[in-house]
């Protein structure tokens, strides 16, 4: 799609996706438009670039494979975030089974981050992301969406299928846990 076509809204994009002759171009536009927000969301969940890259590509491949089933009941971004979150949680589920004992030691995640080629933060940044990483997965998703992605509770609610009240409570608990972890480890 051209730059002019970037002004297309979800409705127009959906009609292009449903047309087999325009589908690939519309999907190319979607990949361009949503790669960055999806990547950063995944990256904050899994931390490494390599894993984030795999999960981002898998998200788009899965979306493409199911494109005919997408009827536009939700926004395209909501649909893509749901796929990305499912992919990420499945990946983390497998990974946690392999590394559960390693991550129990305080400071080990920060240490790994600081030695990562694609991390240029200081120790405070690394410790902060370790504190986030220690949250339960679903609480971490809510925290990341609200704190870093600046999403509204209504948007998060639509993506996760959780009530706004529960999301607010989850975010509040997450903030308290992170603050407590940082106080103990600073």
């Amino acid at each position, binding site marked *: 799609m051209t730059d002019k076509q970037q002004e297309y809204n979800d409705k127009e994009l959906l009609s292009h996706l449903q047309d087999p002759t325009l589908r*690939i171009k519309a*999907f*190319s536009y979607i*990949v*361009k438009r949503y*790669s*960055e927000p999806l*990547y*950063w969301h995944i*990256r*904050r969940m899994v*931390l490494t*670039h390599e894993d984030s*890259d795999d999960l*981002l*590509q898998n998200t*788009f*491949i899965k979306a*493409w*494979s199911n494109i005919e089933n997408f009827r536009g009941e939700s926004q395209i971004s909501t649909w893509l975030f749901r796929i990305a979150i499912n992919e990420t949680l499945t990946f983390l589920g497998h990974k946690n089974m392999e590394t559960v004992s390693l991550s129990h030691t305080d400071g080990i995640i920060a240490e790994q*981050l600081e030695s990562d080629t*694609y*991390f*240029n*933060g*200081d120790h*405070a*940044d*690394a410790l*902060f*992301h370790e504190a986030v990483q220690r949250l339960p997965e679903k609480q971490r998703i809510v925290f990341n969406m609200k*704190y*870093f992605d600046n999403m509204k509770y209504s948007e998060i609610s639509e993506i996760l299928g959780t009530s706004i009240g529960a999301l607010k409570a989850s975010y509040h608990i997450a*903030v308290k846990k*992170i*603050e407590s972890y*940082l*106080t103990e480890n*600073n």
Partner: protein
Amino acid sequence: MQIEDNDIKKRNPFTVPDEYFAKVHNRVMSRLPQEREKRKYKVTSLLNVGHWGYAAATILMFTIGGVLFYNDNIQMAQEITAADEYNNEYIDELLENYNIDEYALYSYLTSADTGY
């Protein structure tokens, strides 16, 4: 430590390789036709038959079950009839060979049933 007004919120310490987002777009787009082909030639499981398949299998199962049950009953009835015929023939033969009248036999069998 308060994190809501923290500078960390505004910082992104994570980085990506040069031109990553342009490259990932190309990589994803080059994989799409292959994924389409994979789906096109995907082997469909015999178990993946949907609701109509399950309905047909249930009807078939009840039909076969019904036929087997009906045949079993006919066979059993035939066997009972054959056994009765065999018993009657045997009793007739006994009455003839041993010169026992039917009343005596009836009395014997009745006393045998009641234990006397």
